[in-house]
């Protein structure tokens, strides 16, 4: 786990930041096919929330999911190899950016369907608890997801059955190009209140504030409390998806973007560290990522003959499509 002290928290924020930047370079160079949804600007949320968790806790994320996977403890090298579609990747190259998962550290996966993770995490935590584990879970989602019925149903199930799931809404102001005000009637904490779920609003740009809110919620949940919700206010620094680097979509006023970027979680947390400590961490992170890039690009590409490997866990083999 990332740990909760200021240095380790900074380290994780910085790691995610630089991971995303390196990943974008690999998108540009054609090594990451299909592009990514960059987590830039939102790092403090994944880092802060996961700092409150143990390795046995489970999380599930979103299409903008790299931060969650890394913060929960996945190896950046294997994560990057996954983005590059290599057999050495977390998912052996089968998942890519939107499905990166690491069950070994409790990451049930990024998820390409908005709002889908809530019920999955709820079921997983419920099952683990039934076996006697004191697992808690986190479902990360964006502001767009609070308008998906399937997520609201999950709020109800978790509340009803008192499953300790922390619902973390990363409100970055937009669902793709749709501003929150154009999509969310009522409010995000109000969505939780509808189901009797306690909700808090935190500054998502401040990793420690996020960690503190998450820790408090996790403590209550471990002590037998039901689900809670945190709305973390944040801003997406970059494009919805890297395709926007090629095709400009006009929906965020430049002043707004500038204002949003001015509150950078990397700096907010970094400024809490003595400069030399910060510099050491930065160097360490660079080294980790240099190694990760090397590892990723050195990985073998999967063999097309195995395209349907793992399609069925039962061992069933599918008829192929040939003529």
């Amino acid at each position, binding site marked *: 786990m990332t740990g909760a002290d200021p240095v380790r928290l900074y380290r994780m924020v910085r790691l995610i930041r630089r991971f995303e930047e390196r990943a974008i370079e690999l998108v540009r160079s054609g090594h990451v096919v299909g592009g990514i949804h960059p987590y830039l600007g939102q790092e403090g949320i994944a880092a802060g929330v996961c700092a409150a968790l143990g390795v046995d806790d489970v999380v599930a994320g979103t299409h903008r999911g790299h931060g969650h996977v890394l913060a929960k403890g996945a190896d950046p090298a294997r994560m990057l190899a996954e983005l590059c579609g290599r057999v050495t990747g977390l998912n052996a190259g089968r*998942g890519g950016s939107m499905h990166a998962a690491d069950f070994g550290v409790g990451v049930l*996966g990024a998820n390409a369907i908005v709002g889908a993770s809530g019920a999955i995490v709820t*079921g997983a935590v419920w099952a683990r608890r039934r076996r006697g584990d004191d697992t808690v879970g986190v479902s990360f989602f964006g502001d767009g997801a609070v308008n998906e019925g399937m997520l609201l149903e999950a709020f109800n199930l978790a509340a009803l059955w008192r499953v300790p799931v922390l619902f973390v809404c990363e409100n970055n102001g937009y669902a793709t190009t749709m501003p929150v005000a154009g999509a969310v009637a009522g409010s995000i904490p109000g969505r939780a209140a509808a189901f009797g779920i306690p909700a808090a609003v935190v500054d998502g740009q401040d990793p420690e504030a996020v960690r503190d809110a998450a820790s408090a919620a996790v403590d209550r949940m471990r002590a037998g409390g039901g689900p809670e919700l945190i709305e973390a206010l944040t801003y997406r620094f970059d494009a919805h998806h890297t395709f926007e680097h090629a095709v400009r979509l006009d929906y965020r006023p430049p002043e707004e973007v500038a204002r949003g970027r001015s509150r950078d979680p990397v700096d907010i947390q970094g400024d809490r560290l003595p400069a030399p400590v910060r510099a050491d961490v930065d160097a360490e992170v660079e080294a980790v990522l240099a190694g990760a890039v090397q590892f990723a690009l050195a990985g073998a590409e999967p063999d097309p003959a195995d395209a349907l490997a793992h399609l069925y866990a039962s061992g069933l083999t599918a008829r192929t499509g040939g003529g």
Partner: protein
Amino acid sequence: MPRLSYRRALTRALADELARDESVFLLGEDIRVAASNVTAGLFKRFGPERVLDTPLSEQAFTSFATGAALAGMRPVVEFQIPSLLFLVFEQIVNHAHKFPLMTGGQCAVPVTYLVPGSGSRTGWAGQHSDHPYSLFAHVGVTTVVPATPADAYGLLVSAVRCDDPVVLFAPAGALDVRADVDLAALAPVPLGRARLHRRGDDVTVVAVGHLVHDALAVAEELADEVSVEVFDPRTLYPFDWEALAGSVARTGRLVVVDDSNRSCGIAGEIISTVVERVRLVAPPRRVTRPDGAVLPFAPALDRAVQPSREQLRTAIRHVMKDG
């Protein structure tokens, strides 16, 4: 030998699996009081932790089952009406089915979806009378449609034990079928294995679910005229192509009777796969619901939209005449 009803065979399968394996649990609407009369007695015997009544939140509880399965459980989800599968199509097809491949084999999703009363229940009209098994055969989720009490038992047991998602359709037209069964001999029936109900030389009739009984009746009726082999695939996906090829290679003629819509239904798939592999002596025929069928309420109209024995007789006579 005691007479066992199809419905009670399902109950017994659930009871046996609940007793055998702690990780099995049931989930659904009104299953405590057994509104569908399949889970009768199970709440009393296994308690609220194993037999969970859900709110009307099909999407959430379906994905809850996925999450629980990812955490090692074997949920069985009952759906009161077949069209609820439309409502959770995303959750089954895009999540439960895809998890193993997308994660590169990190997990399995052993969930059974049980649909007692699929197809027409006279008077239930347009939105409650679907028989959507061909949809699941298309997406590649294991699809089971037992015809007899013993198969209902044995296939449900195998479904629960299967490491992949399985949808089991229990046709309304079969639920009240009773048979003399040696209870001690009830046993798992392997998924993907067909059953020959009746040997014949002239034509292979493939019949799905409750239509097996119609096919057997028609075969008897026509016994003086034509020797009909009655082939029950039992599992529609994966299909027992070897057994069918063997049967058709002997008879040289093929008729399929299937209670789903004609276009892109399992009957078309069966014909298509057979003619790719076997030279028939007469053009094959199928008896199905019409294209795009919606079942009208009035009983005579409802019946008119379902495959009839009359149509099956006609089809058999046609293939005999044509070659």
